[in-house]
């Protein structure tokens, strides 16, 4: 794996994709971002623009920085445009068939020494590697939301991943300002494996009326120094997203602490998904937080 990573392809310009595009461009890498339609490219650019505008307002980014950064990003609709990339990271919808099909297409257009990574949080990286001819160049690169602010990235080792691939991804992680941590391809990898049982426990306790949402979160912030209480955090993550992730991990492990508490299902059914829907454990319409 001789090539230095200079050009990165990102598939998917959603929340995670936009974050990955941003941190790569900020580190001076050329970024090609692939989407399915012109409209989705436009939405992605808006997402990215909104985040950077926030940085300009807080005085962290200059307008010249922004223009240079946007100049390094190219939106494309044809997978063939990824051909010159040294690394392609896919961040499309969490469906195994969709990802597998895309990964095969990517492998068909890039050089043989191009690294390919998936940002999946719930699927097996080892299984996805089967879609890539030459799977030793494939691994997981698991970012956290919001990508520009979260300092961690998990480098997930598929059974097929080569040492060079993993080392190159760790090096890239450091280059884009993250702390890379190498983890095994197990359900939930590492961070979610220890986070999800805790979140599930708090949700069940809340449903059991052990304490109010405000008091639970205050205990976690003031007693343990956590930046956010568990219920506030779930409202940010999205209850549907958490439920899907913990259900997937439960299906693979049958570990009871990973099983989603019933309240999550009821809240998702009622449309209380967290901040994005205006209400979760807290109400953001009456009391914007």
């Amino acid at each position: 794996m001789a090539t230095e990573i200079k050009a990165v392809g990102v598939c998917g310009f959603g929340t995670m994709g936009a974050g990955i595009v941003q941190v790569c461009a900020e580190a001076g890498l050329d970024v090609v971002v692939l989407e399915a339609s012109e409209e989705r490219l436009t939405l992605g650019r808006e997402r990215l623009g909104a985040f950077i505008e926030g940085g300009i307002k807080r005085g962290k980014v200059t307008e010249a920085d922004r223009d240079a950064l946007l100049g390094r990003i190219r939106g494309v609709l044809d997978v063939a445009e990824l051909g010159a990339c040294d690394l392609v990271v896919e961040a499309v919808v969490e469906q195994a068939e969709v990802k597998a099909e895309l990964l095969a297409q990517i492998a068909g257009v890039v050089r043989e020494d191009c690294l390919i990574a998936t940002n999946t949080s719930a699927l097996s990286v080892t299984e996805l590697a089967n879609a890539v001819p030459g799977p030793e160049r494939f691994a997981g690169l698991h970012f956290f939301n919001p990508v520009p602010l979260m300092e961690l990235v998990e480098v997930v080792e598929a059974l097929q991943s080569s040492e060079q691939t993993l080392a190159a991804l760790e090096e890239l992680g450091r280059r884009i300002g993250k702390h890379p941590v190498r983890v095994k391809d197990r359900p939930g990898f590492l961070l979610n494996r220890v986070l999800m049982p805790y979140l599930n426990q708090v949700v069940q306790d809340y449903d059991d009326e052990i304490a109010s949402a405000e008091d639970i979160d205050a205990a976690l912030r003031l007693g343990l120094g956590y930046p956010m209480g568990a219920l506030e955090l779930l409202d940010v993550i999205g209850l549907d997203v958490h439920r899907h992730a913990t259900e997937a991990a439960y299906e693979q492990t049958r570990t009871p602490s990973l099983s989603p508490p019933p309240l999550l299902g009821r809240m998702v059914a009622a449309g209380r998904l967290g901040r994005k829907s205006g209400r979760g454990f807290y109400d953001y319409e009456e009391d914007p937080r």
Partner: protein
Amino acid sequence: MSPTDNAKTVGVLGAGTMGVGIAVTIARAGHRVKVRDLTTEGYERGLANVADFLDKSVELGKLEAERRDVALAGLSGTTDLADLAECDVVVEAIFEDEGLKAKTFGELDEICREDALFHTNTSTLSVTAIAAGSRLPGRVVGTHYCNPAPMMKLVEVARGQRTSDEAYTASVRFLESLDKRVVTTADVPGFLVNRYLVPFENDCIRALEAGLGTVESIDTVVTKGLRYPMGTFRLLDIVGLDIHKAVSTSLYDRLRDPRFAPPPLVDRMISAGQLGRKTGEGFYTYADRKLMGT
């Protein structure tokens, strides 16, 4: 200068780390504090520690000298429970033993006024079980301070099965007079803080045992990914593996939830004398072991 008329007289049982921290917290808010320990040396050392803390607070500009003087003027010590007869509130911070705590409240029944509040600073025991030692269990409230008590804003208030509304309300008002943020919980094992911290720590230890990560990578995930103030293994080394095991086992015995059971690695480390900073070695090794000794 002496405490004002609306100052309360508060007994603090036990002059260990928590007792001293609680005495500081209450005294600097302008209340009279009587520290009771089993021995004269015990309470004298405790009072000296309270005075040291208050002096340091003044030096650091965190406390007005006048308030320290009020606090010290109202501070006294005793070995005799009978000296707590005038207390409006008695806070027990003695050894974490349900029978001992319950028996002590029974003895205080014979000494204190009927309207005196009894606070138990247990972290893992049942408030209801401790309250059963008093003939007036309605006046017993769980008040769990975090360590170090003078610095930590949070106090968990746990209502036992028979805690009265009056005692609960008066206790919250008293704690707010200490400038604490009160959270109210049911009388459940571990209340909130330990109930969420201990199984999380065990999950991290199990992840280590299962080869999901190393001590360093798991701590990186915790500090950089979850943005907690300290890595789990750093924290466990400070707490001490023996203490962690005792707390974890006590919670497991009451809950029977496997996440609370201390993982086998904890036993092996204890057997090997790897208790954390205090023995110079735990999940990490510490070169400055002499500095860490108590």
